[in-house]
């Protein structure tokens, strides 16, 4: 259960310690890519909790979303339209939705466990 967090912390530590930097002109792309990745991550967790998790969908979604978001931002820069806003909006909304669903499922599970416990004590 804690393995994903460990992975996240490991990634953060590795990134911060090695002090890798990208040229500032690619900053926008990376921020959008981060958003896309987060969206996919939470989407995956939600799917797992809802028991509809599919490996292929998860992995392909991860890379495809990142590339699409960065591509949209790239296109936006070259067309002079802030297209990356579309990506930010879409991913932002989905992120909130996914987190809300995850929260509901977790609360539901917790409640169920609680009820089971109380039933046991009554018996």
């Amino acid at each position, binding site marked *: 259960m804690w*393995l994903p967090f460990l992975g996240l912390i490991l990634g953060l530590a590795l990134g911060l310690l090695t002090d890798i930097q990208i040229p500032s002109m690619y900053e926008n792309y990376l921020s959008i890519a981060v958003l896309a990745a987060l969206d996919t991550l939470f989407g995956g967790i939600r799917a797992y909790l809802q028991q509809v998790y599919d490996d292929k969908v*998860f992995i392909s979604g991860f890379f495809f979303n990142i590339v699409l978001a960065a591509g949209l931002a790239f296109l936006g820069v070259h067309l002079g339209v802030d297209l990356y806003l579309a990506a930010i909006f879409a991913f932002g909304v989905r992120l909130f939705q996914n987190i809300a669903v995850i929260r509901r499922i977790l609360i539901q599970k917790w409640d169920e466990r609680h009820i089971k416990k109380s039933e046991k004590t009554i018996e």
Partner: protein
Amino acid sequence: MNMKVVTRITIVSFIVGLMIAVQYNTVKEPSARDTRDSWELRQALSEEKKRHSQLLSEILALNDVVNKYKNNETENLGDVLSNTVEHLKQEAGLLEVTGPGITITISPAMELVQSGFSIKPISPELLYRLVNEINRFEGQFIEIDGQRVVHTTAIRDINGSTTVNGIPISKSDVEIKVITDSYEKAEKLNNYLNISSFRDAFYIDNLNLVIGKPEKSVTIAEYDRALENEFLIEQKGE
């Protein structure tokens, strides 16, 4: 939890963490680097040295006063106090002062007047720029057309005439007296004003700025009205 799923999610969260860290590294402001070379450092140091010596001399002067207070505790404390008051009054501009300084005169440029140019009153902006520059070059006391410049003095345009301390100054012939710490400083001020662009600036308004030679003794009259304080209140009683 299914181990395979956990591994996948762990890998993805590792990548996400890495991306966030890289983004953070890129976005965070690089700490400002000191790019001054040794010459600039030297100049900065000399500025600070100047400040240092100024502060030291102030401390010396104040210590002097403290010593006087201590020594004369029984005898003439009153004298010392009145000396301090005198000194403060002089600084505030309530006393007549005499000392080395220069006299600057502003008069209409005759050649321009003769060829038909009209004379404008001296613009307040030019005047306060001049006063600021004089202050910058350590002019201690300033008087403009008989008006002592104190800390509350306003140089401004009132109904089309330039005023100092609320009193209109002469339209064209104005004498500015400046007193400095020492004769050397008066010389310095004279040199600086001679090379500054003030003469040209006044000439645009058809006025001649004549910067007098440094003199050993210039007298400036006291500020002839009561100083008004907006925030300080006099304490009555002991």
